């Protein structure tokens, strides 16, 4: 099986038609399904949150068979993810895509679990601490995309489970948990 770093690529990765957007509807649906699974899997294991459509993305080309996805195909696969709620366009031009292998709600749940596990129910943390602090090391929250994190925190704030406030430094915000 071909590997990309630690990631095991599926057999389909060596199948040239996999890289051509299929015109026949049923075939294309199946192809898109396979690609969606691959993209989500890959992003989860590699902790990739943002895919730039015009940038090099390792999944989108296979030098072994000299095939790469066309812009149209990339659009199609990412749009399918957006449609499923597993991704979001970050700009109007659809050039950057935020991949949510966990939905925002799931991320929020993960944060709540993390807070409970570490007994931080009433404490204060900075946003940056949640992403890269010692407490979150080894959890899924480590290295989390700031945008996604802020979205999850806003969701929790909305539910009254925490409060976000401006911190002392301009580039960081504090979070007061109140679970």
């Amino acid at each position, binding site marked *: 099986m071909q590997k990309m770093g630690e990631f095991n690529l599926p*057999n389909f990765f060596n199948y040239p*038609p996999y890289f051509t957007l299929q015109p*026949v509807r049923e075939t294309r649906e*199946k192809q898109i399904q396979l690609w969606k699974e691959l993209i989500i899997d890959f992003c989860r294991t590699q902790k990739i949150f943002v895919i730039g459509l015009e940038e090099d993305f390792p999944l989108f080309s296979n030098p*072994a068979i000299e095939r790469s996805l066309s812009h149209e195909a990339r659009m199609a696969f990412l749009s399918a993810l957006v449609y499923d709620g597993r991704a979001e366009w970050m700009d109007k031009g659809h050039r950057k895509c935020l991949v949510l292998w966990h939905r925002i709600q799931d991320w929020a749940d993960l944060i709540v679990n993390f807070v409970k596990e570490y007994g931080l129910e009433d404490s204060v943390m900075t946003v940056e601490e949640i992403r890269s602090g010692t407490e979150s090391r080894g959890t899924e929250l480590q290295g989390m995309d700031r945008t996604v994190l802020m979205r999850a925190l806003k969701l929790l704030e909305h539910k009254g489970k925490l409060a976000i406030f401006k911190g002392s430094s301009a580039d960081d915000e504090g979070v007061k948990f109140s679970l």
Partner: protein
Amino acid sequence: MAGNWLPAAQLTGSGRPVLQQGEVECSLLSSVDLFSEENPSFPHLKSGLVILTTHRLLWVQESTTSSPTAIFIPLSSITHIFSVKKSIKSMFASPRFRFQASLGEKGTKGMVMITLILRGKADIDSFLEKFWEAWRKRGWEDGVKYGSEASGSGLVSGHGSGGDGVLGVRMPVVGVAGILRKEQEMWENTDKSLQEAFQDLNALMSKAKEMVMLAEKMRAKLLSGSTSQATGTNDEEIGTKEEMQELLLSVGIVSPVTKESAGALYHQQLSRQLADFAKIPLERAGGMINLIDIYCLFNRARGTELISPDDLLRACSLWEKFDVPVMLRKFDSGVMVIQSKSHSDNEVFTRIRSMVTTPDALRAGITASDAAMSLGIAPAMAKEHLLAAEGKGLLCRDVSPEGFRFFVNLLQEVDADDIFLLIAAELKIMESIIHGSKLSLLPGEIEEA
């Protein structure tokens, strides 16, 4: 059906008469009754298609259900044609005319007065005129001469061939042979004394003797021309000329259906003729042929009597109504083809499937030209087949800078359909091939893997 009075005429698969050597259709009329007033034992033939040729008067039963039957009266047996009587009565009755013919087997031969009633909206005068003309021209005699000269098999015996091997004035041969004849005509026109002979067929008949001489002269000139040139430098040209002549003559449709001869029945008859014609090219092309190709072939065979693409299309679309072995088919891409009814897509799909599941094709796919070669058809057609197979989910495509290739569809989910079961089995083979080939293709990666 016609007892021993009238011989049965041979019909082609699509219901067109099989013409004799040198026979040309002159006119067609639908809904014609044919019977004898005096002779009750003569069959009463109701509402049929009458085809007048230079040799015969054919009557074809017009029925859509069963295969049509047909009889004919040789023009040579006709002894008299009566002109239409203009009377008050004829104003109201369907137009009719009578002729006398000597019919029957040897021994029981007898004169029969036959009446033709035209039930359709046909112009009886013009038909009668053509009938007269055909009868008087005695085209069948030339046919006999021509036939015995060409193949040695006399078609209808009993007529003295007065020519004694001399190539007489042939009846107007249409088709490609017509082109050759036209060229001759041009030379002949230089002789002003004979010009009128070509403008008026009656005058032509009267000047037949001169014409025979002229034709003989022409032929001699042609022959001497070719021999004198053959001794010269460009005998290659002569070879190609002769070859060309032979080729052209071999492909010509002797009696193309024209608007003039068939009138209102034009498209219907054209359609039938096309169905007959398409058989051989279809076989050669593997059961399916592009409409454009058949258009070229058909018009080439027709020589001077060209048809328009629109006529061709109309003729093809009429096939649905007849019991003919060919059909018109339109692909999703808009390409239109003619295919024989016995041709089936599944057969082609089976062949494509076996083509794409070979180890090479599993790895590299196939192109339209690969398919064209193994199917023995034109690349454009092969592509249509591949696209159709793709539409069925049998194949999927790979578009790369190297070109457009088709692979067996492994993206489809395994279906109950046996095709997909097969593909699932092939998937395992494919895995091993990919990995096997990867090692051979990319030796540098062996260590990495």
